[in-house]
């Protein structure tokens, strides 16, 4: 039986009596009068081919049926990372993230949305402690865009046009950087060492020039390796008059030194590891950090929330710092562009850092390193499988299956049949590495998960 609708539950004024009353009030005879400016040839004549409305109960059944066609990383054992990572999300993060005040707010003023300004100021402040820098922005779309913007900032500051980017970054990130920096800036790739997976310093030296605006590298790299020559890279960049931009996985910073302390002028990264679920890649959220140097601050396109006094003594107020930088104020004459980005993920990352505290961040970082080393060791014990790079790693590492005679594709298909999502297949983007897969192990993986994986692969190869 279909429901006789007189007003849609989402549309109060669709009740016929109200509609009539409102039309009468404004002196229109029908809704058609409102659309009189839209000429006949532009009017949609046929009805749209969209199924008829579902009631909430019907909708729930329907969408759940569709969602049940998905198999989650919780129902399987997953070792997928590569820019979107499984981490433990404390319930506190979900609780605050789902509060209607935050979920349904948007662009309110510091007076009615003071809490939003404070929550984002606190997020900035908490990430600032992690990266040991004094300025952090309201989040960008994702790490890739944060890196792109950091590089554009560097180009504006140095008034140069060439960007040197380490080749061991996520291939999709490189596409995004190239799109955000063309046509006015050029991107040149710096090789990495086959043995360690780290940046090739000789290649860097050869490519630095008076046109170099910035050198960008990541720590840990996309391929997992820890970059131990950070200070050397920064020194080389600075000697050439370039700015050093470092991308970082923030959850590593409980145990790893912040790039700010080995020469980075701009640090960027992704907030998703800090209390945000993966959401099929929708949980990404970028941050940018710098020292409190007006030259750098004035080049941010993003909103920067600051703390300031109000006209009442004993009260904190919040507001936009140097708003005139932004495209909101200056359109094309502002710095790049700003709009809706990923504020709720930023607030959530703040909740995560406040909940974890300094000890929690150290413990989680150490636990990740222990588990990932255990996994790499066990995987390397499989005949024909070996760790590709010799450098230490944080949570991801490359396993080379070339000697097993099996392709990563075949191994992953066999693992999938056993309810295991194997490591990311690198053969498409890095064919020169052979049959390699990028494995991600974090604090969510138990020893049993890892042992199950290792046993499964032993059976496959």
């Amino acid at each position, binding site marked *: 039986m279909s429901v006789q609708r007189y007003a*849609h539950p*989402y549309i109060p004024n669709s009740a016929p009596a109200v509609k009539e009353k409102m039309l009468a*009030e404004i002196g229109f005879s029908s809704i058609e009068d409102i659309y009189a400016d839209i000429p006949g*040839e532009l009017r*949609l004549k046929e009805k749209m*081919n969209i199924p008829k*409305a579902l009631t909430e109960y019907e909708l729930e059944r329907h*969408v759940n049926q569709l*969602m*049940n066609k*998905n198999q989650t990383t919780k129902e399987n054992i997953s070792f*997928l990372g590569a820019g979107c990572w499984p981490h433990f999300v404390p319930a*506190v993060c979900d609780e605050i993230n789902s*509060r*209607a005040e935050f*979920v349904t*707010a948007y*662009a309110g003023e510091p007076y009615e949305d*003071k*809490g939003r300004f404070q929550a984002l100021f*606190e997020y*900035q402040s908490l990430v600032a*402690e992690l990266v040991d820098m004094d300025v952090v922005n*309201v989040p960008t779309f994702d*790490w890739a865009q944060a890196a792109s913007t950091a590089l554009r900032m560097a180009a504006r500051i140095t008034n140069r046009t060439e960007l040197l980017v380490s080749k061991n970054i996520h291939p*999709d990130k490189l596409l995004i950087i190239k799109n955000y920096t*063309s046509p006015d800036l050029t991107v040149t790739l710096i090789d990495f060492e086959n043995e360690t997976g780290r940046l090739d310093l000789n290649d860097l030296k050869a490519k630095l020039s008076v046109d170099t605006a910035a050198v960008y590298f990541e720590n840990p790299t996309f391929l997992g390796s*820890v970059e*131990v020559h950070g200070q050397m890279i920064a020194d080389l960049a600075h000697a050439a008059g370039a700015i050093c931009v470092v991308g970082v996985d923030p959850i590593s910073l409980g145990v790893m030194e912040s790039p700010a302390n*080995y020469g980075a002028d701009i640090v960027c990264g992704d907030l998703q590891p800090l209390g945000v679920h*993966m*959401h099929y*890649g*929708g949980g990404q959220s970028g941050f940018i950090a710098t020292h409190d140097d007006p030259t750098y601050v004035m080049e941010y396109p993003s909103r920067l*929330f600051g*703390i*300031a006094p*109000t*006209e009442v003594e004993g009260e904190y107020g919040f*507001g936009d710092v140097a708003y005139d930088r932004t495209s*909101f104020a200056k*359109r094309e004459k*502002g710095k790049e*562009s700003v*709009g*809706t980005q990923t504020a*709720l993920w930023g607030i959530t990352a703040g909740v995560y*850092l*406040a909940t*974890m*505290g300094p000890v*929690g*961040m150290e*413990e989680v970082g150490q636990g990740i*390193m*222990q588990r990932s080393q255990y996994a790499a*060791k066990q995987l390397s014990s499989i005949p024909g499988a070996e760790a590709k790079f010799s450098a230490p790693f944080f949570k991801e590492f490359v396993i080379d299956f070339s000697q097993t005679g099996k392709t990563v594709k075949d191994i992953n298909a066999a693992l*999938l049949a056993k309810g295991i*999502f194997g490591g990311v297949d690198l053969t498409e983007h890095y064919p020169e590495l052979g049959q390699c897969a990028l494995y991600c192990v974090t604090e969510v993986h138990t*020893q049993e998960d890892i042992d199950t994986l290792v046993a499964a692969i032993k059976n496959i190869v």
Partner: protein
Amino acid sequence: MKTSEGTIGKMKRIPRDHKVRRFHQAKWDEPVIFELSQPGERGVEVPPVEPQIVETVGDGISQLPDSLRRKKRPNLPEISQYRVIRHYSRISQEVLGSDFNVEIGQGTCTMKYSPKINERFVRSPKMAELHPLQDESTVQGMLEMTYQLDLYLREISGMDKFSFQPGSGTQALFTQASIVRKYHESRGEGEQRNEFITTHFSHPSQAATAAVKGFKIIYVPADENGYPDLEALKGLVSERTAAFAVANPEDTGIYNSRIKEFTDVVHAAGGLCCYDQANANGLLGITRALEAGFDMCFFNLHKTFSVPHACGGPATGAIGVTAELAPFLPGPIVDFDGERYFYKRDLKNSIGKVRSFYGVPPAVLRSYAWVRALGADGLREVAEIACLNNNYLYHKILQIRGASAPYIQGRRLEQVRYSWQQLKEDTGITTYDVQRRMVDFAHHYWTSHHPYVVPEPFTLEPTESYSMAELDEYIAALTHISQEAYENPEIVKTAPHNSTGHRVLESVLDDPDQWCITWRAYLKKTAQN
């Protein structure tokens, strides 16, 4: 405790005839989170590492060279769990989301009801715990919803293919500009076509993102009725024209009925036409991008399609293009072979990517559910009621002393840009003063985007989500403030009085010696105090 039945029986019904809401926002005097730190407290325990792992690999961190070992723990606060919850719950009460106020004061943003059932869907592990690189066979439900939403948006717009990758309207505009550049490059005209034509009533990102892609920005002026000037456009197009990008209706709520002539002029000059459909809410099922001559358009899923705004994202700007431009879309895009859904990755002229992975899939899921909850008839009802609400509001606001709506009179589509110019001339009260006073009655009120082409502007967009009584409440608050402006302007100038905070000393925020973008900067800069 003694109660008397007689007393309860005599309790009077509270009269509801006061014009403005009696309101006082929560004020918790809540410290900044660092001030809550108690050394030794913690908010959560991390998963323990099994002894056998430790036995096998040791402490793990010794692998790091000294130069990369963190020397000093980050100076994060130490707070137990319940205290973290109370802190954030308190500051959340100092936020007026659209679940709390009649959010019609944020024009151009289409603040509407975000159905609760959709929030339940996206918070399910079936959405939240998916990894973007899972095998396609394990995400068929997600891919099916994405593909179906693409089909629905094609119906709504007339375009041939959608990508959901852009993370907002701003990123959709950036994507449009990227496609324009790539399109002309593919035809060997990349260098030559370097001018991007837009209007002052478009979103600031329209001009800003095109500038990032290296275009020179040219504005079509508005004529005396508020329409972009067709004659002026004819003089602006040339062999240098890369594209014309415009919203229709623009942020004034004025629909340009000659839009097809505009797109014809631009096409004749070899340029592409980009439709900013941020203001599409009043047009669903009424008129489409295709018939108006656009080559591409985008919808903000966080506006028209009910995804909540989340304090400013994550969001999605779904971008649709004609078949000719489909190979330029950012990849991959979802396709269907009749049996299974899959990613199509071989887009010949793809601009590459604009956002990691596939954008923001929870926004796609919510929009899919919203469209299914409304159906074709419901979507049209959304448009009609949004426009009815807007014209009702428009009619009433023009009756408020000091208010006007410049340009063509009589009707508008889904929003209106108004002006308090008269109020300012009569009383000295500015749109900013009104903004701060509206807060005292639990209303958000936004002035407008820059530049202020309309003097003392404010832009209201009531959408379909608010009842007539709620519209009347908003109108009553504006009427009340207008009256105060004429009779007791001081109370308006010194507002807000009933909100969480008072006027912020903004000069501090523009002074490098005083601005504090983080708590640690604040501590350093105020150390001498």
